[in-house]
């Protein structure tokens, strides 16, 4: 075999090796960019196009006329260890806490095992503290009795912040 053939085969083999490596990386690239990234700014603005400027947590806008269909459809964790987690809202209550039996199991040292629950009543969603150690806050107001939550209001439980989104 001539020197040239040997060299060509040697380099050709290396090219083949890298062709494999690069195509494997090409497959991975799709995996890197093809994931759902939960943007926490835009969905809120889109889901809650016109929140009345003065409507604080204590003055929700009950939307009885259109029923729950126009209400929030999911509960989103926007801060804390579970940031980005989304829970679809159905017709049943959502129990939040560290206990495995909760609907939303928080991985948060500062929440109690059964911390709070979010439930629908009369066309709106209410949040109620279940006697937690560190309390539940809606827009920095400590929750004592069940209070209604408008979409976009910040529900703080331990280190986590949750909000309802449409």
């Amino acid at each position: 075999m001539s020197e040239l053939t040997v060299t060509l085969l040697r380099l050709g083999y290396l090219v083949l090796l890298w062709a494999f490596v690069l195509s494997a990386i090409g497959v991975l690239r799709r995996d890197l960019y093809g994931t759902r990234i939960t943007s926490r700014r835009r969905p809120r603005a889109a889901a809650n196009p016109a929140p009345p400027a003065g409507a604080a947590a204590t003055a929700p806008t009950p939307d009885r006329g259109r029923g729950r269909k126009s209400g929030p459809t999911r509960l989103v964790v926007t801060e804390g260890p579970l940031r980005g987690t989304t829970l679809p809202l159905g017709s049943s209550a959502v129990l939040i806490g560290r206990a495995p039996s909760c609907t939303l199991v928080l991985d948060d040292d500062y929440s109690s095992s059964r911390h709070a629950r979010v439930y629908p009543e009369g066309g709106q969603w209410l949040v109620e503290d279940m006697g937690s150690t560190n309390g539940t806050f809606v827009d920095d107001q400590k929750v004592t009795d069940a209070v209604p939550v408008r979409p976009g209001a910040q529900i703080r439980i331990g280190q986590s912040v949750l909000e309802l989104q449409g």
Partner: protein
Amino acid sequence: MATVEAHRVRAGRGTELALLVLALAIAIASYALVGLGATDELPADVLGYGAGMTGLALAVHLVLRWRAPYADPVILPSVIALNGIGLAMIYRIDLAREARGGTEMFAGKQLALSAVSVVLACVVLVLLRDHRTLRRYTYTAMVVGLVLILLPLIPGLGVTINGARIWIRALGFSLQPAELAKIALAVFFAGYLVTHRDTLALAGPKVLGLQLPRVRDFGPIIVVWAASIAVLVLQSDLGTSLLLFGLFVAMLYVATERLSWIIIGLVMFAGGVAVATATFGHVAARFHIWLHALDQDVFERAPGGSGQLVRGLFGLASGGLFGTGWGQGRPDLVPFAESDFIIASLGEELGLTGLMAILTIYLVLCQRGLRTAIGVRDGFGKLLAAGLAFVIAFQCFVVVGGITRIIPLTGLTTPFLAYGGSSLLANWIVAALLLRISDDARRPAPEPVGELLTTPAGGTPLDEDARNPVAVAGDDQPTEQLRRTSGGGRA
């Protein structure tokens, strides 16, 4: 631990097939080029070999289509490529040994063992329908792992080869049980940590800005540390000892996300090694060879000198950037060129370019393992996938680091490349487990809304909770303990 969801899940079997074509081309080209380089003619059985490798690869591919359609498409081609490159290099060293009048042939055995390993990997994929089944055998896996590690110490069964007592010989087969033990222990660590990670993550005293765990939670790490030191002392096996402890510390970190465990682990291991170095000659010798490899008297010392290490470095140097080409170098000058030093052999014949490609394949393989760990939904699967990916990465680091003199040389095998049946078998099982877990990770989730409506997950505990709030005070314990230790909760 977060989950990342893909927009649109592609099963990836088509991609896998395309990558397999490339991987098989690499495997067959390596074999053909070895023949061309060493004897100037194509090996007579290159077609048969090609057909065999293709058959093995397609067998796994078809099993994946049948039993794990969503498995990761990159893992299998990477493993096939590595296995093929390893086989070709072992065959190449055989040819060199034959030319010098040697009679011991390894390539045939390795090929047969590759076939057995592939069959075993298929059996794992077919029989293990859900990796969560393994969680039931958490403590069984612990016993199996410890027994496997201790087997070589049994008189009559264990054999001492090259100073390390890590082999058993029975019925004409010899086996390195520690290779299989690492899988059993990964299963045990995953099962154990997923249950106990809350206690292990609890914060204790804060020292120098580092949040230490509570003293009473140190038990498990001390047990594993003692076991790995025992392996080091009783079997003279620094590699397995490192792997065992490294695996536990890595999985502990993945489970608790506390950096303090890694620092504690490193400090404990450094302390153990320091004591072992002072007490046991063979560990001290390893360090001496590492630090003074190029001294004339260390190089020339007949057993236990740095001759092997330095010849490996010479080989890497003579390979240069593009290597000598398959069959053109002299990798056989290095003792154990087909097993411990296969990376040096490959570096010589394929050069830095080829070696980098091989290391990138490992990188891709480990990345797929860790990506699987992120994607899979259950904690056990996450820990197991992360642990298995870590095992592969760690073995590569220890072997390549040892050969390139970054760390002292230890006796771990290069996954999929090096000659050694137990290692090949164990690593194919690791690959099968990763494929199984990745199938679960990439499978589209069932529609969550339907699930929420059909199962009253939120309703049942709520009612009972509302009626009797005192009854649930018992499982509030982690929070209660946290308050005691950190002096009051913050909101």
